[in-house]
């Protein structure tokens, strides 16, 4: 039983390190362009294999954040977490472009104490309360405790502070990611695209209200505020069930960090990119991995 839980936890850890491997996290707005205010956008959120068919797990609405065009924080309404899909609404009561999404920050990796491997995992707690990741009963002293024999499942801590001073072979990766949608009421604005200069971010050169089949769009990617050259950006259309291929497009950013995307059709597209380097910002972290995800609506000409 315990072994199984640990294995699940380990799998969750790997999933954090490489998001989107088996399942994709997505937000799906009812529309991205509205004539005026007030209007209501309805959003589905899920983690599933294919876009945008919920078949696996809901994304908790409590993790959703809303950025209003005037820089204030908006809020969701009528949130509900189902088994395979969550749903919520946002009332667009201010004109301009809104950002809705979730930002995740986590940390994970391995280290050794007296030759025994330990794992660090933060974020969604694997196994729930009392599981291996529940830090309460496992203070910083715990790693010095009974060391497992070879073949025993890995041991866990849940925060970087719990890594003991005598730890060796520290390989800790900071993870950060955001999953976004953008909706516009009336005339588009740019405030929600102002980069923070931290991590992996996207700044549209072509405004997201101007994505049209047959008209190449330019989206700029930044890492720590600087153009991310040579970044691989994946773009996938929804609705795979109705065709044979997954329709994936891969684009590399140029020296200016710009990915030029020529939309093959109108519809909802899921965009994802990730980047890893060793410029970790937290103490003891040895690397970082960042991801950016967005669902974009492409209009027919």
């Amino acid at each position: 039983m315990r072994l199984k839980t640990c294995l699940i936890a380990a799998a969750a850890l790997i999933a954090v390190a490489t998001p989107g491997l088996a399942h994709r996290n997505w937000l799906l707005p009812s529309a991205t362009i509205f004539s005026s205010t007030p209007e209501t956008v309805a959003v589905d959120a899920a983690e599933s294999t294919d876009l945008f068919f919920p078949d696996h797990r809901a994304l908790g609405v409590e993790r959703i954040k809303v950025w209003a065009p005037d820089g204030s924080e908006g809020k969701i309404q009528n949130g509900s977490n189902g088994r395979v899909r969550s749903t919520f609404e946002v009332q667009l009561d201010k004109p301009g472009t809104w950002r809705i999404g979730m930002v995740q920050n986590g940390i994970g990796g391995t280290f050794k104490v007296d030759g025994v491997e330990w794992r660090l995992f933060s974020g969604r707690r694997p196994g729930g309360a009392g599981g291996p990741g529940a830090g309460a009963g496992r203070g910083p002293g715990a790693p010095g405790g009974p060391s497992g024999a070879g073949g025993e499942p890995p041991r866990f801590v849940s925060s970087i502070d719990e890594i003991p001073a005598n730890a060796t072979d520290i390989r800790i990766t900071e993870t950060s990611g955001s999953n976004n949608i953008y909706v516009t009421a009336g005339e588009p604005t740019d405030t929600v695209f102002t980069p923070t200069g931290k991590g992996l971010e996207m700044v549209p050169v072509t405004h997201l209200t101007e994505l049209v089949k047959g008209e190449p769009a330019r989206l700029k990617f930044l890492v720590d505020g600087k153009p991310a050259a040579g970044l691989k950006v994946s773009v996938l259309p929804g609705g795979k069930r109705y065709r044979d291929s997954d329709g994936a497009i891969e684009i590399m950013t140029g020296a200016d960090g710009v990915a030029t995307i020529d939309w093959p059709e109108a519809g909802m597209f899921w965009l994802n990119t990730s980047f890893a380097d060793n410029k970790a910002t937290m103490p003891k972290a040895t690397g970082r991995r960042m991801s950016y995800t967005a669902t974009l609506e492409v209009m027919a000409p």
Partner: protein
Amino acid sequence: MKKTSLLLAGLAAAPASAGTLTITIPQLKVAEYHRPYVAAWIEPVGGGEARTLLSWYDVKKTGAEPGTKWLHDLRTWWRKGGRSLKQPADGITGATRAPGTHKIALPTNLKPGQYTLYVEAAREQGGREIISLPLNVAAPNGSVSGKTELGVVTLSR
């Protein structure tokens, strides 16, 4: 009275007109018919700002879901200029029109040159269509026929 002035606004400039735009809205045999939303605009051939000539929508409908709610269904016009136009716009906004032929005077203050005229129509529980015609301000002339939501659209002196 106000409604009437909105309706007539597009025609008012007729005497000094630089030309006439004729839009035919086709008669459609469908179970549930709603008059289409229609917008027409011109763009300079060399690139430049779009100028809206007319936007016909359900101007009477107000309340929680006013007639403007569906203006973005004229999706190309919305992107090119509709979204930056405050509605109702003087001399541009009008009520939806019945099937038939409608004449609209082109603005007299158009700078000479080559433009492209666009006419876009979108109908509730129906389709959407956009057509275009070259427009030479000095000699407006030409005709194109829509296939679904628009009939013949003509430019003439």
